[in-house]
């Protein structure tokens, strides 16, 4: 009985047609299972949402900026819907797994704008955001190719899906561009959350002479770092490196005074998020379009190597970056299947 007397307006009010004209603008996002601090794209997306909101002087919450975390795929539609009912103007869904949910909800909540990160949805009120991960991967490959001493480098992927494959494809190209005879040991462990597999795989690679591993494996990557760190700890002169992914993984690489993080390939979801928010607030929401962010748009890049990579190598990497940005080099999206 008590529930019906004092209903919370925010939770109750159904989406109405005039939500856009309420004067203000507000935005929110639905995270994947990882939550807003997954050190990956959820975190980066939230960074974008939050910074945008703070820049406008908004509060976290209804009417400002907010997020909802999903505990499983079955929460996507509900969370999107709940946010739409709270009259947020622009709602992001983070991760390609949310494609279908956004498609459904966007069809129902026609007055709300949605944006899908890493996925594509064809609807007038949805803007799709994709990244040219291959371009970032390419730079990581160049860095690895230039820095390897053994001419053996490794790639460890989490699950084998199109996004991760772009990382891999770029990495392979980048390495090849520097020195075609470098061998790349490339493996998918089949999960983003199995650190012990990442560790074992990394152990195998390092033992076989690989000295730099680029991982795109989320929590599985933790295992890659811990293997590298152990080797570094056991032997300070060991030449073992990890290239991190998504955000700057320098912290992960710390081992005493040393660090095994060579650099990290950044995927600037925050940049894209802010860009779309900006466009939307100014009435230029790219509904029905797919925006692909690449090096050119600052959507990708390498993190500060903090001296791990010498300046002359950095200069060379920059050259490649330049070439990609101006279209001189086109990086393939797919791995050329070995015959």
């Amino acid at each position, binding site marked *: 009985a008590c529930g019906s007397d004092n*209903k919370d307006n925010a939770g*109750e009010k159904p989406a109405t047609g005039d939500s856009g004209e309420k004067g203000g603008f507000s935005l929110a996002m639905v995270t994947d299972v990882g939550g807003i601090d997954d050190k990956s794209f959820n975190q980066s997306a939230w960074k974008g949402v939050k910074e945008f909101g703070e820049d406008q002087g908004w509060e976290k919450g209804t009417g400002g900026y907010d997020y909802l975390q999903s505990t499983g795929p079955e929460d996507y539609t509900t969370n999107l819907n709940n946010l739409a009912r709270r009259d947020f103007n622009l709602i992001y869904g983070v991760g390609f797994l949310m494609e279908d949910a956004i498609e459904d909800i966007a069809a129902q909540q026609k007055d709300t704008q949605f944006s899908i990160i890493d996925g594509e949805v064809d609807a007038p009120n949805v803007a799709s955001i994709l990244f040219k991960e291959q371009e970032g991967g390419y730079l990581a490959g160049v860095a690895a190719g230039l820095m390897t001493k053994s001419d053996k480098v490794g790639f460890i992927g989490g699950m084998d899906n199109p996004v991760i494959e772009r990382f891999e494809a770029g990495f392979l190209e980048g390495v090849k561009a520097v020195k075609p005879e470098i061998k790349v040991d490339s493996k998918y462990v089949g999960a983003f959350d199995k650190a012990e597999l990442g560790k074992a795989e990394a152990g195998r690679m390092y033992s076989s002479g690989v000295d730099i591993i680029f991982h795109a494996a989320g929590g599985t990557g933790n295992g890659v770092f811990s293997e590298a760190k152990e080797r570094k700890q056991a032997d300070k002169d060991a030449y073992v490196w990890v290239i991190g992914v998504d955000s700057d993984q320098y912290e992960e690489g710390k081992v005493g005074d040393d660090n095994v993080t060579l650099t990290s390939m950044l995927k600037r979801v925050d940049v894209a998020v802010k860009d779309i928010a900006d466009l939307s607030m100014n009435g230029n929401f790219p509904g029905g379009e797919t925006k692909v962010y690449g090096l050119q748009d600052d959507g990708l890049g390498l993190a500060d190597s903090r001296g791990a990579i010498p300046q002359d190598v950095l200069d060379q990497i920059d050259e490649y970056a330049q070439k990609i940005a101006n279209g001189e080099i086109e990086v393939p999206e797919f791995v050329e299947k070995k015959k």
Partner: protein
Amino acid sequence: MSNRMINILVPMISIFLGLLVGAIVMLISDYNPITGYMALWNGIFGDSYAIGETIRQISPYLLAGLAVAFAFRTGLFNIGVEGQLIVGWFAAAYVGMAFDLPKIIHLPFALIAAAAAGALWGLVPGILKATLKVHEVIVTIMMNYIALHVVNALIKTLSGGGFKLERIHESASLRSEFLSNLTDYSTLHYGIFVALAMVVVMWFILEKTKTGFELKSVGYNDNAASYAGMSANKNIILAMVISGAFAGLGGAMEALGTFGNMSSMGGFTGIGFDGIAVALLGANTPLGVIFGATLFGSLKYGANNMPNEAGIPVEIVSIIIALVIFFVACGYIIRVGLIRLRNKKEAK
């Protein structure tokens, strides 16, 4: 206080205790429990949309619970419901997308495919148990992982390197315009009727059929069952197959109702593991499973509204759910307390 009264009171009190401790946790971490629970309430029953979604969430739990319960009744511990559900999900999604048939054929075909896939996944541990006495708990745990990897690989192959299958055809869908409109565009679908029908099926098999009589006999005392000329082995296999079929149908709920397709899975759905609690909360009876699934589904779904409406982190919600389960499991001690109370009253 009659016995029936006590039977009703025990779970009520357990849930209340869970919520009470949850409230204390909220207080300690500086959240207002009243706002929190209001949000939970609204999340479950707040409006027709919430009710629709809650019921939608209950459907797979019902089937997972039935699967676990059915196996338990024959003395088998099926931890493999998770994997059976995943292969069922895949089979339904595949049949839903790959064929184009009239609804009257397509939908049942997809459902049967899911049940068959789940049954197949249950068959393996069943056969190993019956013929080689291999412990079903280990095999079913391993089968879960195998299901996960195999289904992911199949999705990749079938989608030409992608990460999800195409959407199923309308003709295989459990989605319903009618239910959706009724509940303010929720994803409520006809699956709940399938699930409830399976509750009846389980009840019917166990309580009405010869097979059920044999299954229960083997479950309680396999020595006596074989003395009476029943084949313990046949029944073990049968029980795992039926259990797996229920689980597979649980997957069909997701494939044909909630999601309408299947994406590659980063990890387990958790529904299968929760099914263990659902079944045991319901004392492995069909009616009990309805109770367990309703409790689980409501809390699980309603919980989403706590961060949404009251800004309470999801983790607290999980704590509360766990506590409720815990106290419901401890129902015995509450029952003892109530009976003492009654006896004291009667003495006076």
